[in-house]
């Protein structure tokens, strides 16, 4: 028998100085990404140094929150008790308008209707003491 995990809450971001500005902005309903002050590269996820030029100073850019589905999978087997009620759910990699890719869920439509290249926009889901960015289809 495997141990029963009593905590049914979904995994949450940790207190991490490198990524804290991202999650703080999400709590305010803004999707942001660091932009390198040296080479202007906009990237996710937040890192200690720019992945292109290795400079270490950034400004936080407000993103449009729009993007397209780069690839997606419908998850049908919950591996964590907190996701049992969610299956089937769509885990997707979103290519944002500004270039970076971000993993998330696509919600607000039946899972089988999520298709590659579909336009999506960010929505914010409050989960107790934190907020996560999710995406929903942009209706044409």
């Amino acid at each position: 028998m495997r141990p029963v995990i009593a905590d049914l809450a979904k995994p949450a971001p940790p207190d991490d100085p490198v990524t804290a500005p991202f999650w703080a902005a999400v709590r305010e309903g803004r999707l942001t990404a660091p932009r390198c002050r040296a080479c202007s590269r906009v990237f996710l996820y937040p890192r200690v140094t720019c992945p292109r030029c290795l400079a270490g100073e950034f400004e936080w850019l407000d993103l449009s929150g729009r993007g397209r589905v780069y690839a997606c999978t419908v998850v049908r087997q919950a591996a964590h008790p907190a996701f049992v009620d969610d299956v089937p759910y769509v885990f997707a990699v979103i290519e944002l308008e500004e270039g970076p890719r971000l993993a998330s869920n696509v919600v607000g439509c039946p899972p089988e209707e999520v298709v590659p290249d579909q336009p999506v926009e960010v929505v914010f889901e409050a989960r107790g003491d934190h907020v996560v960015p999710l995406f929903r289809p942009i209706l044409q």
Partner: protein
Amino acid sequence: MAVEAVDAALADAGISPGDVDGIVRCDMENVSVMALADTIGARNVTFWADTGAGGAAPCGQIGLAVGAILSGQASTVVCFRSIAWATGGGVGAGRRSQSRAVGGHGSYEEFFMPYGLLLPVSTYAIVARRHMIEYGTTEEQLGSIAITCRQRANTNPSAQMYDRSLDMRTYLESRIISSPLRLYDCCLVTDGACAVVVTSIERARDCAKKVIAIRAVAQSSGANVGPGLLAPSLTRPSITTWPSASVADTLYRRAGVGPSEVDVAQIYDCFTVTVLIQLEDYGFSAKGEGGPFAESGAIDLNGAVPINTAGGNLSEGYIHGMNHVIEGVRQLRGESSATVPGAEICLVTSGPPPATSAMILRRDS
């Protein structure tokens, strides 16, 4: 299990356990180096090391052993992997955290797990979907890989799936775990262990069994490897070419052979798509053509490059790819349950998309 495997490997080689002076582990291994050294009765271990990550370890472990021997740090090195993910849980059972906060420390798990990316299968499912988008790969093509590995297992009495056949209809009717990947796209969970003894070619020629030479071994991260273990690889510039491609460049150059000279290959197969991408990255087919290549029969026993002749992770058992090393040796010794006639050169690969490793084995001439 680790001790049993190491003792069996040493007995096979005709080397006394006391003579082992090097031990190399996988970074996810539960058995410590000194616990093993003490239990087998090693007189003096002078070299030990870990490598990984996880399934990327096995060929890298062999590489560390080779380096230790060539540099005089050890003379007889045991590389082993013991795993109990069938009964003990593990990655396949899902990553369950006691606390809500996950990730941090450069792992970037917090950008994946809150969205239910909890099993490796979903990372590989995204890769499979992307390969379908870019190249038109089909579910039947993935299925052909699962069926090929199963057919090899069906002649291997030691394989978990020895007595269970698989056809395309059963494959296509199996349940979706994380689309487009189905049950039979996923490897097994296994309790088991494998061990390999590495020593100098001169010492090996005095041993009991036919000598199999390590022609070349390579590890490679490639560019843009990214932080973290598995999921963050989904943000690389391309997710359908893996560090396997740069491993292949280094490996073939060191070995002085190319893919057309490989007679048989043991290709790490945690999922069917893992094989598909590597068929391309190791140069057996052009990029994007791994699906039609697999479906054509090229990976069958009589094909251009027979793969996973013991059944692989998909159908023999999941010893995290160390079973691929064992089968590579058995194949070239003529001890495989699915012998490829005249095979002299065998490619063995370890697990991508993390920075990974591979090697070329050759019959000693």
